[in-house]
């Protein structure tokens, strides 16, 4: 096996271009996500106010809205159409419409009606703006209520009970700041590395066929397909697992992302993730004899991996078919592992099924071995027949 590994490293060394480019790509993605989401949650998102009232109250609402950290008032509009246009231009993500006569109605104890428009086509920004504006509405209501109750001579303690009889105390487990970076990077970065490892492995096997060195490769391994494949995979496993571990170290170590459970288990599942992804690549590359087609199938397969990991939209809410289909993706198991280990701090007794699943991907290697042995024998037979004919 050492011979095969040696041979593979020589190949990589003679053509370091791809390894360098792919590694740079990983670094670039890491830097991009880390710097882009560095504020945690998008702050000071632009929103608008359509102020038809123009009163003391509406001005104050604009002012207070601008003072909240989540949003900033991009513009105060005089009519609905302008605000709607600006929303379509993407300048604002939500706006309040304060109808004419609001202040008068409040003074007369009638309840005027505000309208809150938010743009959910931008999911994150729209939702966050909505949350801020809705809270603002609640606070404004509370403030007016308090004024009224005070004037009626109700005591301060009782006022709170009257305005807000029940509240929630929300605890967001492991991500109390609702930091988007934590949520995004912990799964996305290992996923990117795993699928670059997948493509690179696929490329390495496919290029043996392209160069027509399949026989030479298996000869180096003494005709044993499994050893040939393992020798091929391991240099990449080592390199990409190392990158993934460094990435995890930076995220959970330097960037202080929450990590409740054992580092060892997390590292183990990272290494297994890379290896499992490579096994998938090996199976695809060994079954499909055409190199460009191999790469296209690898790409087709991995393009769905991010969705099927279930970190953006939960798998349980997808149609039945995808529940089992997602098991074919190593990143799904990695994500479940991350959830149990890093978020809930559970031990091996909780996450062993995922480890088994990741290990089960190694079985694909056996299928790949059978295919490659078969091709090898075909070539050998072809050769001997050729010699016989020549003789």
């Amino acid at each position, binding site marked *: 096996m050492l011979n095969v590994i040696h041979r593979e490293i020589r190949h990589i060394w003679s053509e370091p271009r791809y390894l360098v480019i792919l590694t740079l*790509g990983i670094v670039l993605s890491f830097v*991009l996500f880390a*710097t*882009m989401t560095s504020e945690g949650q*998008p702050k000071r998102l*632009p929103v608008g106010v359509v102020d038809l009232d123009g009163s003391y109250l509406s001005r104050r609402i604009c002012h207070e809205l601008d003072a909240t950290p989540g949003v900033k008032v991009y513009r105060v509009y005089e009519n609905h159409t302008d605000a709607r246009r600006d*929303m379509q*231009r*993407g300048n604002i993500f939500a706006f309040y419409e304060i109808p004419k006569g*609001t202040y008068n109605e409040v003074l007369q104890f009638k*309840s005027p*009606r*505000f*309208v809150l*428009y*938010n*743009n*959910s*086509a*931008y*999911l*994150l*920004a*729209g*939702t966050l703006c*909505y949350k801020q504006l809705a809270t603002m509405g609640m606070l404004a*209501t509370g403030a*007016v209520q308090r004024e*009224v109750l005070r004037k009626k001579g109700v005591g301060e*303690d009782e006022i709170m*009970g*009257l305005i807000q*009889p*029940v*509240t*929630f*105390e929300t*605890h*967001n*487990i*492991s991500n109390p700041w*609702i930091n988007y970076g934590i949520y995004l990077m912990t799964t996305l970065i290992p996923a*990117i590395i795993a699928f*670059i490892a997948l*493509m*690179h492995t696929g490329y390495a096997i*496919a*290029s043996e066929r392209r160069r027509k060195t399949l026989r030479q490769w298996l000869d180096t391994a003494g005709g044993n397909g499994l050893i040939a494949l393992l020798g091929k995979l391991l240099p990449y496993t080592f390199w990409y697992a190392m990158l993934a571990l460094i990435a995890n170290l930076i995220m959970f170590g330097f960037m202080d992302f929450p990590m409740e459970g054992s580092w060892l288990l997390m590292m183990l599942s990272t290494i297994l993730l890379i290896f499992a992804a490579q096994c998938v690549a090996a199976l695809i590359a060994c079954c499909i004899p*055409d190199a460009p*087609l191999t790469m296209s199938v690898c*790409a087709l397969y991995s393009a*769905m991996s991010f*969705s099927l990991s279930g970190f*953006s*939209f*939960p798998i349980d*809410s*997808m*149609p039945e078919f995808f529940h089992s289909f997602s098991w074919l993706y190593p990143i799904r198991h990695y994500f479940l592992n991350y959830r149990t280990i890093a*978020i809930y701090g559970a031990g091996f007794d909780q996450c062993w099924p995922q480890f088994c699943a990741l290990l089960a991907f190694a079985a694909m290697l056996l299928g790949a071995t059978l295919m490659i042995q078969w091709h090898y024998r075909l070539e050998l037979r072809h050769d001997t027949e050729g010699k016989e004919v020549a003789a």
Partner: protein
Amino acid sequence: MNRHLLHFFDIWDVLSSEVRRVFKDSTVLLIFFFAPLLYPIIFCFMYKNENVRNLPVVVVDEARCDESKRFIHKMDATPEISVDFRCLNLDEAERLMQTGDAHAIFYFPKDFSQRIATKRTAHIGVFCDMSSFYYYKAALLGSNAVLIDEMHTIELLRYAADGVTGIEAEDQMQPIAYEEITAFNPTGGYGSFFLPVLLVLVLHQTLFLGICLLCGEAYENKRSLLLIPARLRNHSTYRVTLGRALCYLLIYIPIAILDLWFIPRWFHLPQLGNLYTILIFMLPFFLSVIFFSLTVGNFFVRQKITPMLCFVFFSVLLFFLTGMVWPQSNMPRFWLAFSYLFPSTPGVQGFVRISSMGANLAEVRSEYLALWIQAAAYFGTSTLSMKLIRKFKLFNAQ
């Protein structure tokens, strides 16, 4: 006049030879015709539920009073939440969260009823699973609706006890009413947000990949020069670039109509724009993607299979650079500028605004302009790249 007609024939020659190349290559056919059909359909099925429904949650009710039971009952009745488990203490509930059976805990402390009875604020503890934002969203949406409803009920009782009843109590309780309108994606669903972005990105990426493959193949088989018809070899190369671009454009117009118009229609995605606006907007998009891909393909791709190596992370990067997830207003300046190197950024922004948000061309003017500028710039670079290839090859031949 005659000369112009000749130019036209040159372009036609390049175009027809390029069409033949496309249809001879099975991998390119797979990428051009199969992937743009397969992906939209798979992803539309994947996200057809839009939102999380009946999120399994666990309830720890230490209060065991009328109010808490009514609260739990109402929560179970919301479409978002389903109260599947009841536990005696928080430890037990936490174990259910660890195994992934439940995704939120609602905890009613012992003093819950007492606080309500003494007109103080009562608290309910909520523990959310943050591994996916959609768990959090469903738990919050469902429980908030119940909270507001319960507050209303209790407040009415309290006001009644103070002698305020009827409309007067209603007005006092809610001195300012507000109405919420969620525009352009009424359910706030993931599918309606993600799929329009995906549709444009799929077109962008398949076109990019296919063109890079064709460039790689030509280079590999030392046929880059053959792309230039013999009589044009000493002339300017813009006709070659135009001819090839026209070939891809003709192939992609029907695909674009299917993907950007019929798929959203069939799968009931938000669709407020009209087909003509979309097509007029997408024309510079396709041109700039084609010229961008030709530039990258001619300059960097030396082997047919290399473009696919970088494909995965490139797609993910483009997705996040479009500014649909992390808003453009909050993107660091550098990345914002960087994102405008790729046609996908203005393309996605413009398409979503037209198709999901019903904008007209005037409202996406800046994106439209950006696409034409990109198209012009990349046309220049791709012509240049052809020129360099010719120079290089002729030099080598001598």
